[in-house]
């Protein structure tokens, strides 16, 4: 096993431990807990924070289980549980820029449970195609910059921001190199390992992460031979990472994951911030660019939609089918699902919808459904070939 992949897996498995250790070795620095999915972490990095996208943990929800209603998604209920247990005290401030009602509910719990930890909220407009949208996004970004400056007490250094943008772009580019190589069949990393690459990037100091990725690519990736019967694209699952046991199940059922649009996957790394623009303007532009590169159902944009992206991605990767991973009660995803379904059916792309929860996934039932998809695809191919 590759030692670098091991290290990245270790961080992905226990982000809290990494944060605590980082704070120990950087006693004069602060850690910012970032809620997904659109907050420009580069701003926090430039302001001297270690930005960490707060991850769902693997503990059962207990103390915070009843704080949010059962129709909140697993991620937000787990955030509430983490807050109730004091797990989020490792963060010095919280930042978010998304107005998902459930996420705001979790933020309220965090505010209530940690009244002395500041929470900074910026709200990016979701309607991307209005004539006034660019100005409103820029205005909100200026507001976020002011919030970041308020949290540090010093003006943001735009030279440092440009440097942070270059650093983040470098990390994204290295990650994309691995994702592209997987899509093109040049490396065969398990989907669990691919998730670890991205999840660790959301947690680690970027320079440290980049150094590890550069070493990994320089050494070469020792990848397994998949012996897979079918190639699948994983789609969906915003905000938090799908359980790794679920990812392993796909491969155990005879599938190889060749591409994805998961937040803990290609969605997070798809778009660089332009380095030829003034840095804040570039971050503003980034907000628009990433919704074109991998459209999000939480945004409304006339010239970009996720279903078109998905079918194009499947065509490019040559995936035989799609597994749609939907966090239960994720309303934007639920609302767009009929469109995804229609698009896939129109192109006769086999697909399977898997709803996920924080705990209690019926793994054997899921195994039957995934195996049935694999069999459906492979038997159909065998008959077509005969």
């Amino acid at each position, binding site marked *: 096993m590759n030692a670098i992949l091991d290290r990245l897996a270790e961080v992905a498995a226990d982000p809290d431990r990494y944060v605590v250790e980082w704070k120990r070795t950087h006693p004069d620095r602060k850690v910012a807990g970032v809620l997904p999915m659109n907050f420009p972490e580069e701003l926090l990095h430039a302001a001297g924070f270690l930005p960490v996208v707060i991850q769902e943990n693997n503990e059962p929800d207990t103390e915070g289980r009843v704080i949010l209603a059962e129709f909140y998604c697993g991620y937000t209920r787990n955030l509430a549980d983490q807050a109730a247990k004091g797990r989020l005290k490792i963060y010095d401030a919280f930042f978010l820029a998304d107005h998902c009602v459930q996420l705001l509910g979790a933020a309220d719990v965090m505010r209530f449970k940690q009244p002395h930890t500041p929470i900074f909220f910026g709200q990016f407009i979701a309607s991307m195609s209005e004539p006034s949208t660019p100005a409103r996004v820029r205005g909100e970004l200026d507001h976020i910059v002011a919030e970041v400056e308020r949290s540090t007490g010093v003006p943001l250094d735009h030279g440092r921001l440009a440097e942070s943008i270059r650093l983040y772009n470098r990390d994204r580019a290295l990650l994309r190199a691995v994702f592209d190589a997987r899509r093109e069949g040049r490396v065969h990393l398990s989907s669990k390992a691919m998730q670890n690459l991205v999840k660790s990037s959301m947690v680690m100091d970027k320079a440290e992460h980049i150094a590890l990725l550069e070493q990994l690519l320089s050494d070469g990736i020792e990848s397994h031979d998949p012996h897979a019967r079918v190639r699948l694209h994983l789609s969906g699952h915003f905000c938090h990472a799908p359980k790794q046991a679920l990812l392993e199940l796909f491969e155990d059922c005879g599938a190889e994951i060749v591409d994805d649009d998961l937040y803990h996957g290609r969605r997070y790394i798809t778009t660089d911030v332009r380095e030829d623009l003034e840095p804040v303007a570039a971050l503003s532009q980034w907000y628009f660019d990433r919704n074109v590169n991998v459209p999000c159902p939480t945004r409304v944009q006339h010239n970009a939609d996720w279903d078109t992206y998905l079918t194009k991605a499947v065509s490019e990767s040559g995936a035989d089918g799609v597994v749609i991973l939907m966090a239960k009660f994720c309303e934007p995803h639920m609302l767009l699902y009929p469109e995804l379904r229609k698009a896939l059916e129109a192109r006769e792309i086999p697909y399977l919808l898997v709803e996920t929860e924080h705990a209690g996934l*019926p793994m054997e039932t899921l195994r039957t*459904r995934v195996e049935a998809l694999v*069999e*459906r695809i492979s*038997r159909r191919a065998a*008959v077509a070939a*005969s």
Partner: protein
Amino acid sequence: MALRTMGVDLGSTTAKAVVVDEAGGIVAHRVVQMGAVSRRGVAAAIDAVLDDAGLERGDLGQVIATGYGRRLVPDVDRTFTEITCHARGVAAMCPGAALVIDIGGQDSKAIRVDEVGLVDDFAMNDRCASGTGRFFEVLARALECRLDDLDDLALAGGQDLEVSSMCATFAETEIISLLAEGEEPTDIAASVHRAVSARTLGLVSRVGRAAPVVMTGGVARSRAAVHFLAESLRAPVIVPAEPQISGAYGAALLGLESLQGETRVIGQAVDREHVHTGQQPNGRDCSTCSLGRAKYQPIDVELWTASIAADRRP
């Protein structure tokens, strides 16, 4: 030794085994009920079917396992999901079938199939036992009757009561509440069957309606369940003579195909037990169900209550 293959379906409550010959004809079959995902049950089914066929395990060209417990079946050449196997089995048993509704002990599935038994689409219940054999067991317990008595009870019901909860646990509470309100057990049984059928219709809608419809699984042995499903679908529902073995039969055929290197519709079209229209032109009777007709009589509720009081299960 002529080529023989065996399919073994280890379901949540029953184990089924089928041996087929080289033309896909059924040589022997067994259904054994012996506890949840029972290893003893599957061993008993295999031993019995081999005995019936006059074969030893080593005489078989392939052994294919399927069902919820497929990974627990020892010494198999490979496994297939019950979705693939039911589709394949039904394509042979009932040529031309387009939609398979399989309701077993713990799960239910709607499978749209093409003409050679390939799965076009499928949907299955998640973790809820609603509409499965388990659900009917809960209903029987709440009504204090034997499972076998449920058919007559439900088919004698007339009034459509509101049974809103489809959770097996909550439904039991609701049934008890209806009994306490003085509602007739016949009407309650019928209403629960209607509610279950509506739930099954939800599964069907996920894969798209298609006809002919074939129902398999242990619940397909229930005349009432088939009747109310047909009524709900507003379409005839075909039930094979042995609705529980279609998965094991499909598995055996897939084993045969893997040895013969081809996929085509071989196998044995079976006698159809009945084609239930779900229509009751004479008020109680099914126009085409010769097997059930004699039993589709109104029940004397007082007599029935007295009889179950004398024969109450522990």
